[in-house]
């Protein structure tokens, strides 16, 4: 599902990659850029947070030659004078122009901290509206822990696809090779408004190849019914559950000091001298015994 985000062709689609300090997302962004260029798309990168040299580092020569990069890193605010910076051209709408099919923003967080959420969301909406004629798509990198959750929600609603990268909560398992780099939670909003959400383990290998490993760990519930993805009964040394066979055996077990009705009836029957014999007491009174059936203890003063 995460690879569908990078291969999306719908005009006006705004795709966001949300990463964090513990789980970087620039490698995934560069992977998407590389694939788009190799598919023959016209890609334009607005490099704000890192220099263009640092962005193209690791990309193939063929991709570098066909990639268009605007240097918004060296002098974004025109402190050195000269032509309007790519930042100003992005704000004024001169950057997308006729031509690029995919506009990459590295990073959207950089724009949010300088321009504010209102201006950035308005700009994204303008790009989406203009995409009917230009066919432009937008792909942006967002640092989730730089912004408050409400802001992330608002910006996420402007996007048609949001991939959130978090660290793998599972402990590393010996003998299973390198653990996946991140857990990618992908939310894609279709044209009809239907939201599809999946969770996958991904790794960006050498050469910027995205590898989806393992099965999706299922959709996550909302804040009211959060289900932890970690099963607390997963790695216990004892068994918390019983099978049907074990349950039957347990129910048929007779406890040593428990007197079930069947056993009680058999004991009483045996004591009453029924078939099968039982204990009997034979009493032969001595000559000195004054056995009075009406007063066996001889304590009545009659």
């Amino acid at each position: 599902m995460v690879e569908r985000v990078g291969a999306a062709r719908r005009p006006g689609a705004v795709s966001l990659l949300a990463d964090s300090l513990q789980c970087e997302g620039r490698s995934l962004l560069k992977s998407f850029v590389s694939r788009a260029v190799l598919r023959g798309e016209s890609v334009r990168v607005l490099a704000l947070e890192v220099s263009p040299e640092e962005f193209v580092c690791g990309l193939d020569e063929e991709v570098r030659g066909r990639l268009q990069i605007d240097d918004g890193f060296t002098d974004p605010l025109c402190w050195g004078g000269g032509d309007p910076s790519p930042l100003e051209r992005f704000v004024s709408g001169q950057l997308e122009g006729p031509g690029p099919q995919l506009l990459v923003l590295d990073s959207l967080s950089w724009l949010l901290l300088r321009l504010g959420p209102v201006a950035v969301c308005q700009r994204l909406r303008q790009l989406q509206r203009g995409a009917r004629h230009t066919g432009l798509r937008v792909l942006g990198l967002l640092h989730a822990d730089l912004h408050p959750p409400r802001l992330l929600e608002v910006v996420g609603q402007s996007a048609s696809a949001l991939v959130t990268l978090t660290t793998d909560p599972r402990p590393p398992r010996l003998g299973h090779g390198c653990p996946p780099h991140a857990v990618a939670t992908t939310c894609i909003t279709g044209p009809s408004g239907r939201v599809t959400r999946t969770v996958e383990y991904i790794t960006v290998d050498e050469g910027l190849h995205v590898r989806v490993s393992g099965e999706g760990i299922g959709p996550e519930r909302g804040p009211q019914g959060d289900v932890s993805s970690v099963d607390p009964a997963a790695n216990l040394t004892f068994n918390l559950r019983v099978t049907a066979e074990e349950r039957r055996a347990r129910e048929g077990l007779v406890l040593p000091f428990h007197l079930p009705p069947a056993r009680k009836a058999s004991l009483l029957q045996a004591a009453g001298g029924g078939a099968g014999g039982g204990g009997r007491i034979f009493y032969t009174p001595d000559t000195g015994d004054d056995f009075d059936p009406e007063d066996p203890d001889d304590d009545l003063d009659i």
Partner: protein
Amino acid sequence: MFPQLSHILTASAAGRQQGIGILLCDKQTDGGFLVHHFLSFYLKGDCKVCFLGLQQSFNHYNLVAQKLGVNLSAAKEKGQLVFFEGLRAALEPLLDDKPDSTLQASSPLQFLSSPTASLRSLYEFVCTSLTETSETTWKFPVLIIDDLSVLLSLGVSTENILNFMHYCRATLCSKLQGNIVVLVHDTEELGDEENDVVVKSLCYVSHLILHAEALATGHCKDIHGQLKITHRTLSPTKAERNVTDIFQYKIQDKNVAFFARGTSSAVL
């Protein structure tokens, strides 16, 4: 410099040593000893250093540097060190009665007169200090700032601080292949949102993060704090996780001893 810390940083660093950003954070403790380490480290390494001392006076840094075997006055005289004493320079624009004077316009701290102004003048001072040609050839330029949280306290906006750091990175790290060392205070649990944004933004663009914090269990005579060293690999060809090492330290008179957790000489 502290030999043990130098050994730890050079032994575990997996990448380049030039063109990097180093972020020093302190939380509920004083991380100034890290600034003194890097100042003496780069001066002994024949680097050209521009030091923005906004927290303490020149004499303070000089006294500590002498204990570490470095003479800041001599370094200033031979042009290796450009020391900007913020405490002294801050008085000039504040005490100047004429608002249109050239003194205010040329001062690196002219933003004190109008807090909404950018830190462009300070950036130009840094550029001029580190790009001046001299007879002696130094290895690479280094900018050390102690500390950036002071600018927030002076009323500078988050945006202006981030823009200043961005331009310093663009010029020093990318263009001149120099290093930047910045000290900020971590106030994550104190609710200072602006400071948190500055700290986290700098974490994203730093290659090495040294986080000094007090012990969670309280004061200890033999262990003064804990240092978390995070190497952000930022590999260009694949996704990699950050590598974090944790050490405890004890500050002595002329040195700082670093050791693995639980291996303090008082414990063993």
